[in-house]
């Protein structure tokens, strides 16, 4: 019990600590791929600190919701992130939240963010919220369908159980799981405002989505929101890693060595996925906003196809 709580707290601290680093790493890799030097991988930490120290400017007619939302968004994302096994399974909270809960918690965060975008009553905030919800209307079911496929195959919605199943004799890549993976990756790109869906680095008025929603934020509020965004990216990568490359994760009741192995494996996975992500981002161009539904729609179709093919490919249950 205590060990579980310890692992859980460690995990919470770990994800919180690693998230900005992951963002920094992606930026660095991206810069290198573009033949730039790029900022240090620790730049996000500095940015956060800088933002926190700055004066906070709040729009005149912003309500309490505008000011409270960042904390709630951050907290929800953080709780969701702690539910995903990273370096070890058997977390104390794993009995409280399965993969559907994780999706839903992210939904709560998005819901609040969209509201915050509308609160000041500007046109850009509205654009962001409206587009975000439209993307979500496709991305969320796509994600759930991918999750369904995995859950149906593994007979569980618990991430640790799915992870264990994938490690077991019946795990491995079959067509359903492959499709689910592709769907999940597409969703992850969309949800984290990555190219080709959105560009986190842009402030070009008519194309931004995520940035439009948080346009009015500044100072510590912006810092918290930025932290939540990097946590979300970490969460998605962890999720994909936990399900599709579950090797190395420490199991229940493992010793210190296993933890060390688990941590190392986790760091390696993060690095690999960050590299792949940036590689993909640099290789494609951003889409027009109304091409995105097609893109996400593909994910939804793939997810559904994965579920249906699961019956064909005769995975033992």
């Amino acid at each position, binding site marked *: 019990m205590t060990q579980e709580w310890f692992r859980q707290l460690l995990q919470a601290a770990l994800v919180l600590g690693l998230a900005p680093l992951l963002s920094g790493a992606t930026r660095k890799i991206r810069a290198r791929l573009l033949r730039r030097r790029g900022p240090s991988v620790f730049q996000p930490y500095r940015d956060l600190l800088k933002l926190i120290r700055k004066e906070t400017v709040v729009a005149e007619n912003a309500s309490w919701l505008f000011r409270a939302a960042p904390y709630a968004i951050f907290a929800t994302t953080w709780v969701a992130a702690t539910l995903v096994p990273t370096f070890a399974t058997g977390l104390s909270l794993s009995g409280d939240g399965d993969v559907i809960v994780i999706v839903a918690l992210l939904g709560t965060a998005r819901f609040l963010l969209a509201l915050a975008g509308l609160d000041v009553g500007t046109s850009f905030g509205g654009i962001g919220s*409206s587009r975000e919800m439209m993307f979500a209307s496709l991305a969320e079911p796509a994600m759930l369908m991918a999750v369904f496929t995995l859950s149906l195959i593994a007979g569980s919605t618990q991430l640790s159980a799915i992870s264990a199943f994938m490690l077991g004799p019946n795990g491995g890549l079959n067509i359903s799981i492959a499709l689910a993976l592709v769907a999940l990756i597409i969703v992850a790109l969309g949800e984290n405002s990555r190219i080709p869906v959105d560009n986190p680095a842009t402030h070009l008025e008519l194309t931004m989505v995520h940035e439009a929603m948080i346009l009015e934020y500044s100072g510590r509020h912006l810092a918290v929101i930025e932290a939540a965004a990097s946590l979300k990216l970490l969460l998605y990568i962890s999720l994909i890693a936990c399900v599709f490359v579950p090797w190395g994760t420490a199991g229940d009741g493992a010793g210190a060595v296993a933890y060390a192995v688990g941590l190392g494996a986790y760091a390696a996975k993060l690095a690999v996925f960050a590299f792949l992500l940036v590689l993909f981002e640099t290789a494609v161009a951003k889409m027009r906003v109304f091409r995105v539904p097609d893109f996400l729609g593909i994910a*939804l179709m793939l997810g559904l196809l994965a579920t249906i093919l699961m019956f064909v490919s005769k995975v033992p249950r």
Partner: protein
Amino acid sequence: MPLSTPHCLSQLAASGVGLLFALAPIGIFAARRPLGIRLTYAACMLICAGLAGVALLVLLTPASKLGFIHIPVGLPLGRTVLGFDPLSAAFAVIINLATAIISGYAIGHGAHAREPLRIMPFYPAFIAGMNLVLLAQDAFSFLVGWEFMSLASWALVVSEHNSAENRRAALVYLIMATGGGLALLLAFGLLAGPGGGYAFDQIRLAASSGVGSIVLILALAGAGSKAGLVPLHAWLPLAHPAAPSHVSALMSGVMTKVAVYGFVRLIFDLAGPPLWWWSIPVLLVAGITTLLGVLYALMEHDLKRLLAYHTVENIGIIFIGLGLSLAFKAGGLGAAAALALVAAIFHVFNHSLFKSLLFLGSGSVLTATGERDMEHLGGLIHRMPVTAVAFLVGCIAISALPPFNGFVSEWLTFQAILLSPQLPQWIQRLLVPAIGAMLACSAALAAGCFVKAFGMTFLGRPRSGAATAARETDRWSRSAMLVFAALCLLAGVLPGFVIDSIGSVTQMVVGSRLSPQAALPWFRIIPINPARSAYGGLLLFVMILIATAATAFIVRRFAAHSVRRSPAWDCGFPDASPATQYTAGSFAQPIRRVFGSVVFRAREHVTMPKPGDTAVAKLRVDLHDTIWEAFYAPVIRLVEGAADRLNKLQFLTIRNYLMLVFAALVILLIVVGTL
């Protein structure tokens, strides 16, 4: 102790319903002065609370200790049997709890009615009708209650009769309600058989699946039209918003639940053992309902109509649960059937809470601003803070987001969907995941829908003078909404108690129940087994609270404390006019572009004047109500055409009439002659 006798609870409940009926004529006199109105609503509140208590007792009493009462009124050739069994008791708790709170709201809100005489007599009658449906243990009382419920709510819908729109709404409603009632009448006719065994226990003895198949279709039409299943939902978005807001809450939050009860009673209890294919029409209709309901809601800019359309979506979710349960029950999977049914009834409960809450909130907004159109609202969070908080809770809950209650039932539904590989038929195994996709899609759309609803109404800047001048509502209304909001949270973090209460229902209806949940550590719920799935709403809620508090504390601890208010930045293009904000229409535009072009045949027409021309540029959006055009318009055309054609018979000459008589005579003679 009278509680020990089996009939006592039924007697108590019946007398409660009797009191409500008696309150209806009293309402005529009470409507004349404000105190009378308040007292009437207070009486409704107390009686409903009592009824909810009685029903809860029934739910906790072992089934063997329950008894029904027979009263010598009602159908001349049958017998009238009244009483709660676990199934009706569960629904009775749900509807009376919500009704009691809504009545509490009405104590404050009811004073705003322009013509209270058109509301007061019908309000108690409406509640009484709903309770009678639940209390009935024979077909006649059931239908009397059913029609009474329709009739009283119709009167309430038409209470603001000066608007032609309301009159049309009421008319469409009454006609469809009666049509549904007739479908149920047929169903009961089939179940009762030629011998006329109208009591439920007689029907249960005689039930057979062959008959049940037709009953299923009729129940889908009858109960479905009342609940709002597509394509029989057309009345719902018209009628629910037309009524005074607390009545809208009753209709949307409560009455539709009675319809669900009707379906469960007919199909799960009376129609006999289900056949495997029964679930397919239910699931298909439910899936389509879910998706279309939310899409319709997204296209709507009228706050109350949006909520009403969203009721359609939620009814779809409930029926998905029911359809799954039916599938599992037919497949002999008792535990899975129990899970799906629990999910459905849990969602019934949840929806009664948050939909009532949202309608009450919209009522407060309507009273404060006189506006239902979201394009004229905005910024109310500043002027109506309590309403805004309650409404926000409702919005999050209805969007099925944790840690509120809506998520729990949807999660349970997903868990049931994930059990579908156990089903014996291939078609079901393929269908159920597709339905799951629809459910997932609608959940995400619902979130968009309520971002729009809350954002346009409460956030941003006021879009009209009325919204600028809005005032917070009265004490009663605020308290009622906060109670609902609190219940939404409670049911979300302590779902185990709700699930356990439904246990005796599933035991009765599908012959199985989930393992007790309330005793699990941290009030987690584990519907099947811990390795498969679990959800700990309480712990997650606490974690989120702690995380929020900790973050806020730490950030504020280290952050610069200066906060400056300034005009909005808006990328450097701020505009003082509230008209530059995103509107409800523009918010929904991306989703309309994605889904609407197929579902609503949405087309945008832009009229752009030539350069130099000072005419106004215009954007026009054409939306088609495809369901109305596909299902209703042809029927109306048919009837109108037939009426037009036959109407010529009114204008014949006497000789032609004689000719009709003569022809009838000759034809009948030929018939007799050839026999």
